[in-house]
């Protein structure tokens, strides 16, 4: 158990509703100039969730797993955006899936939610969901200089994090160098993810980017996600993969950052099953 201040955090309700997919009405342009229809943002995905591969979906462009919610009031949405965390509990409060429960599984600009398959089939676009937002202000005792962001306290406890030699040791599925971090760079870690770029064929192979799964816990080297988002030598950032592959230059699977610190505070250990699908009990963890 990590010692945290979770009992001192405000737990409060925020709401959102399932949003319809949108289309820009034109082709998106790939890095070599190829036109393609990109689909996958917003709406309800019946067959894609955490634990699935990000790569390989036909026409997939920033696929958001599960269902995507927002709050149509701009000021209310700013609060939803700032307060809800990955792993927070969600309940459907209107429509045929009323009473169904699930979890927040990521934050792109909007949040993605997992529901059980039978509930996912009953929910409709525009149905409302309420979230018990819990996690803003979370700190790990004795490690207050590690920046904790957008992670629900119970999920943080389930990630297999140990303390060794004064460092947090975080199980990760993969780690990535600073040069491959793309769209979302320089933006605010609280409000948006940033992408592992998948538009250089050479680095796709060198860094095994086709193996990335929705929900993977990953490490970003020399990256500091604290008061902003940028390069800092030997800093380590831990994040969760929240959306899919991209064919737009500088884009790719998105990472919501959850832990970040300067040198010497966070170390990592490889675990191919470091994925929130297993931590949240959404999928059964493969036996070793």
């Amino acid at each position, binding site marked *: 158990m990590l010692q945290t201040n979770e009992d001192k955090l405000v737990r409060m309700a925020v709401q959102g509703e399932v949003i319809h997919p949108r289309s820009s009405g034109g082709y998106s342009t790939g*890095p070599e100039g190829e036109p393609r229809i990109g689909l996958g943002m917003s709406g309800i995905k019946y067959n894609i969730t955490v634990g699935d591969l990000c790569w390989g979906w036909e026409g997939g462009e920033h696929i958001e797993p599960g269902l995507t919610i927002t709050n149509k009031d701009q000021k209310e949405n700013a609060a939803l955006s700032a307060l809800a965390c990955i792993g927070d509990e969600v309940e459907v409060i209107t429509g045929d899936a009323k009473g169904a429960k699930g979890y927040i599984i990521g934050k792109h600009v909007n949040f993605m939610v997992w529901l059980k398959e039978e509930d996912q089939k009953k929910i409709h676009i525009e149905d409302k969901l309420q979230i018990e937002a819990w996690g803003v202000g979370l700190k790990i005792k004795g490690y207050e200089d590690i920046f904790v962001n957008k992670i629900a306290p119970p999920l943080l406890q389930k990630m297999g994090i140990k303390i060794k030699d004064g460092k947090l040791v975080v199980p990760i599925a993969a780690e990535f160098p600073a040069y491959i971090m793309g769209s979302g760079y*320089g933006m605010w870690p609280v409000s948006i993810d940033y992408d592992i*770029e998948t538009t250089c064929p050479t680095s796709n192979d060198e860094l095994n980017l086709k193996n990335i799964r929705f929900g993977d816990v990953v490490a970003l080297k020399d990256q500091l996600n604290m*008061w902003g*988002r*940028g*390069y800092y030598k030997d800093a380590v950032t831990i994040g969760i993969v929240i959306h899919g592959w991209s064919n737009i230059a500088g884009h790719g699977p998105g990472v919501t950052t959850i832990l970040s610190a300067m040198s010497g505070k966070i170390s990592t250990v490889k675990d191919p099953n470091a994925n929130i699908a297993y931590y949240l009990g959404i999928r059964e963890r493969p036996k070793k």
Partner: protein
Amino acid sequence: MINTNKEKLLIQEVVGVVSHPTMLVDGGLIGAYVTTWDGRPKIGFGIGGIKYNVKVGDSCFGWPEAEYLEPGVSLKSLEEKSPAPGQQATDRSFYQYSCIGNEVTVINGSAKGIKGIVTGKTGYAGTPYHVLAHFPLEDLKKINIGDKVSIIAEGIGLKIEGFDGEVFNMSPKFLESLGLELDKGMLKMPVTKEIPAYVMGHGVGGDQAGLGHWSIQTSPPDLVKECGLETLRIGDIVACKDILMHYGKGYYKGATTIGIIAFGASDIAGHGPGIFAIAESKSGKLKPIIDPDANVTKYLRVK
């Protein structure tokens, strides 16, 4: 010597307006600051308007409380939103068609008839699109915010014969002023510095090369020192290694993109002087030649 298709390019007018300064963060009654990489509040001004004492050739660093400091006169489009459903706004054409070296003329107000030159292009998520223009100091004082300007836009579609790559955002005259050589398919271009991919920050994933900028990170201070960024000046020509700005902006191993620094440094994590692209080669046929004087002031002959 290089050969181009300059005689085939369309030359047309675009019209813009001298912009008012804007803030990076809108202040409320409780106040709002930009937050620096290390958690300090900063006012963060420098976007938009008319700068009487900041021009191309000046240092990117050392301006108190400034962020994204744009030199000279910052121009915006006539309309930033579509005037009616189904109609295109003029902003994209204004920002895309304007090229460095294009002539700018003030067409109303007390500065009517005064001429300047395009020196830069900016814009990406969170910061507005602008075309940056230089005017001689004595003329600058006659210009008012809100004045209209005409730009003779020429440069879209410019190509260099035999070069396996693309050029962007340059008037033919500016391109010729660089005195380039194509040596066995390799295009040599003067730059003040080479920037490695990991130093490139906010702007990645942005528009095609003809629109917007991509920033060189200027925090933390150790990174600035490590990469020798302290000497960067607004208007410097720089080479970005393993970076491809063409149909979009992203990492691409083996590619080189050369661009021009449009504005000053930043203390926000992942931000810094923005580069707009002038040339790329995915196949490595663009060779940067280090020249400490490779700044647009030299080629545009402005002071």
